[in-house]
């Protein structure tokens, strides 16, 4: 534990801490470009120079480990002069195009040039110019602005686990480029935009559409996958201009997946902004009162033959309201598992990511069952890779043979391997049972199948047999792909006594036993299976569900409401409204509340507070915000026969998994592999 003095303040730090980190602990800011706390230290920008007594020259503080008795000065005439020199060298080849640069206003180089830059340049030779590179449809490159900090290269190599990006040439001729001009293949590639301290890598879909100081910033929670990453939604007027990650060490660190970051243009397309009622086979615009009256009439006629299916992005308020309404109507046909996952609402630990995402960093053995975390939760996958890089995590996978960005043993593709593991006859069982903190991640690919209960049962057996659950550690984890799933299970949005699940509802709709089906943004079910049932679609986008619906009720997307979501760990989080829903669309729970009134079964809540109180009454976990409550472990699943069919990941196309991303042109471009498209020379003055 070396003790050192920085600017007269003494501090004791752990061995291996750098001088820059120690200074940061004291609140002393040292300028930097290449250093980033989540990336390897490069020490190549030289902006963080400090003076250390008894050292002859200024030292790069980011790469200098703190030593016993060091006396450091961060603000002396010598240091100011040295940093001014570094800044002058950086600016030699940096263009003065801040007025047309998207980074302008939030640029590290701009800010630090204010502190250390000169008011004029002494360099009169021609500046270098570097051609743009093709990084795919998400990242715009203006490489002339690059200062070679290599943060992007380090991120793609270390965190994303790809070797696409590198620095070719040397000195002034260095260029950051992808291998033979390929697009970036990572699902986390958007993060290099945030990492870039200058305007070399910028947001391509949003190019030239905003200046950072025009934006209103709303701190909220992502609902594009089961992770519930912390995000910041930047808006101008009533338009979402971009989505950025917020630092949250518990969930997403500093990162965000490309779908969560770039699908926001889907929030502006194919939106349902008014009610429609189908008349003579064609949807006709209707007012709220007309549409609700039609629905109420049909529901009254249907009696108990009413069913509701929740989609992947339905908020908890809406599910609670629909559940209450269904109970009032005497129907138990509700389900939040539109993919048919055999999850049980009874035992909370059986459907949570119990060890927590941050807990991955303690794990020493991991088996993935029917899951491809790289597509299902790229940020979580990066966490697994981070742990794997320390050399303390052994990973094995049962399921499709895939590149997970870290080395792992592939044990097989079907449930029989899981059965062997659970029985203790598989060699990897020994690795799990001898591990200190063993982990199992069960994906929806293992659950959303006819033998899903048996798979869940075997996984639970394995958890018991291999000691995955012990004091202070629960290594049994279910990885969800839907933001709504855990909330739905917590609310018991599953068939009640005598109720039908999704498959049962579809059967009933075909046979006529179910007369009205309410789809809460549920688009992933087989629409043809709905037969002659009267379909009410309450959701935000004109997707498959709306195309089939007899009545369309426009709802709000996750950026447009204050709503509750529970992430895969069981963390209850609230979104904050960043913009208003378009047109006549309303927050979904309010629509259900209005419908209940039209039905004469008025739900007993009028305000958001009332509904959220109701949530906590249904399940006390909703009374705890942003934290994770350990759930008690027990038996789950069954010992039924296992199918021979191999596990397949539920995500076929990472970029198009839900109504929002399917409406997004950016995601379509990614999906189409438009990655290979050539970059057209475009400047701010081109239309």
């Amino acid at each position: 534990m070396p003790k050192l003095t920085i600017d007269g303040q003494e501090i004791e730090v752990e061995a291996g801490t750098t001088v820059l980190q120690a200074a940061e602990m004291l609140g002393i800011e040292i300028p930097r470009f290449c250093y980033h706390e989540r990336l390897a230290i490069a020490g190549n920008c030289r902006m963080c120079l400090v003076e250390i007594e008894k050292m002859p020259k200024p030292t790069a503080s980011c790469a200098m480990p703190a030593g016993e008795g060091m006396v450091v000065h961060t603000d002396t005439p010598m240091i100011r002069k040295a940093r001014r020199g570094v800044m002058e060298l950086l600016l030699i080849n940096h263009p003065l195009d801040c007025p047309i640069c998207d980074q302008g206003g939030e640029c590290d180089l701009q800010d630090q040039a204010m502190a250390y830059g000169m008011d004029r340049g002494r360099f009169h030779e021609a500046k270098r110019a570097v051609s743009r590179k093709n990084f795919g449809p998400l990242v715009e490159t203006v490489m002339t602005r690059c200062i070679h900090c290599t943060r992007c290269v380090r991120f793609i190599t270390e965190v994303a686990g790809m070797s696409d990006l590198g620095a070719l040439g040397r000195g002034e001729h260095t260029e950051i480029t992808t291998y033979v001009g390929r697009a970036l293949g990572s699902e986390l590639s958007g993060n290099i935009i945030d990492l870039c301290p200058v305007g070399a890598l910028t947001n391509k879909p949003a190019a030239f559409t905003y200046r950072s100081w025009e934006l209103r910033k709303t701190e909220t929670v992502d609902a594009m996958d089961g992770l519930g990453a912390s995000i910041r939604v930047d808006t101008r007027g009533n338009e979402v201009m971009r989505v950025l990650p917020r630092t949250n060490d518990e969930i997403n660190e500093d990162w965000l997946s490309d779908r969560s970051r770039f699908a926001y243009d889907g929030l502006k397309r194919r939106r349902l902004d008014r009610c429609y009622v189908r008349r003579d086979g064609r949807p006709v615009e209707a007012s709220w009162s007309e549409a609700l009256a039609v629905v109420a009439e049909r529901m009254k006629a249907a009696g108990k033959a009413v069913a509701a299916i929740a989609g992947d992005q339905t908020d908890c308020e809406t599910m609670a309201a629909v559940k209450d309404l269904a109970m009032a109507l005497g129907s138990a046909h509700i389900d939040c598992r539109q993919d048919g996952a055999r999850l049980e609402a009874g035992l909370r630990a059986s459907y949570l990511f119990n060890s927590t995402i941050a807990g991955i960093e303690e794990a020493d053995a991991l088996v993935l069952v029917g899951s491809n975390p790289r597509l299902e939760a790229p940020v979580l996958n990066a966490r697994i890779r981070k742990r794997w890089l320390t050399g303390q995590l052994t990973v094995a996978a049962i399921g499709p043979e895939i590149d997970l960005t870290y080395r792992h043993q592939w044990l097989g593709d079907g449930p029989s391997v899981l059965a062997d593991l659970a029985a203790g006859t598989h060699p990897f069982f020994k690795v799990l049972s001898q591990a200190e903190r063993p982990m199992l991640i069960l994906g929806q690919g293992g659950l959303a199948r006819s033998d899903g209960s048996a798979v869940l049962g075997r996984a639970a057996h394995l958890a018991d047999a291999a000691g995955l659950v012990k004091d202070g550690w629960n290594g049994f984890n279910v990885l969800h792909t839907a933001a709504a799933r855990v909330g739905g299970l917590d609310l018991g949005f599953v068939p009640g006594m005598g109720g039908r699940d999704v498959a049962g509802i579809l059967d009933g709709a075909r046979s006529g036993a179910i007369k009205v089906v309410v789809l809460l943004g549920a688009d992933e079910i087989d629409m043809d299976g709905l037969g002659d049932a009267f379909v009410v679609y309450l959701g935000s986008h004109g997707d498959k569900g709306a195309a089939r619906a007899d009545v369309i009720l426009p709802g709000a997307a996750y950026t447009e409401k204050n709503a509750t979501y529970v992430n895969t760990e069981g963390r209850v989080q609230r979104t904050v409204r960043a913009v208003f829903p378009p047109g006549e669309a309303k927050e979904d729970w309010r629509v259900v509340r209005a419908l209940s009134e039209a039905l004469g079964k008025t739900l007993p809540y009028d305000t958001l507070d009332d509904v959220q109180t109701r949530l906590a009454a249904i399940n006390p976990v909703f009374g705890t915000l942003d934290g994770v409550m350990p759930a008690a472990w027990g038996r789950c699943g069954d010992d039924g026969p296992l199918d021979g069919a191999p596990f397949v990941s539920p995500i076929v196309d990472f970029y198009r998994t839900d109504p929002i991303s399917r409406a997004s042109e950016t995601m379509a471009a990614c999906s189409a592999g438009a990655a290979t498209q050539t970059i057209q020379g475009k400047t701010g003055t081109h239309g």
Partner: protein
Amino acid sequence: MNAPAPDEPFAFTPESLARAEAEIAKYPPGRQQSAVMALLDIAQRQQGWVSQSAIEAVAAKLEMAPMRVQEVASFYTMYNLRPVGRHHVQVCTNISCLLRGSDEIVAALRERLGVDFGETTEDGDFTLSEVECLGACVNAPMMQVGDDYYEDLTPETARAVLDALAKGETPAPGPQGGRQFSAPEGGPTTLTGAADEGES
């Protein structure tokens, strides 16, 4: 780093492969990536230059990402990332050679070959390159052809070297002015007398 050179298929010959294995064997198991520079050199000696295919062959051999190999290949100027002629004439124009008249050498070479820096003669015999200091300042001005240094050049001797190479001969490398290595011109100036050697 402008237009990429057209690729040329590459596969290690058995001889190259044997040399590559010998290089890899110099490092502990699992550290085979340390041999990347040696393997790139072996590939360049085989192919004459380092093509994209050669980079990928080296990457495959060393279990590296091709990007990482390309970073190395592009960092060092001595790897030729585009094809060169049979004789690669690299003339030094750094400070010592400049002071000793490298400008005249360059002019003579340009005139003799009819090409500029970075260009190859039409018959594919010579490529002319300008390089930084090759560490032979004591014999400046100098040029490197293939693996050989030709030093103490004058425009005449530089031309003569190229003429000989064009005829298929291999002129004697080293100082072209007649002195031995970097011994003083006109013979030794110290330790000249037997007396200095002492009685024996």
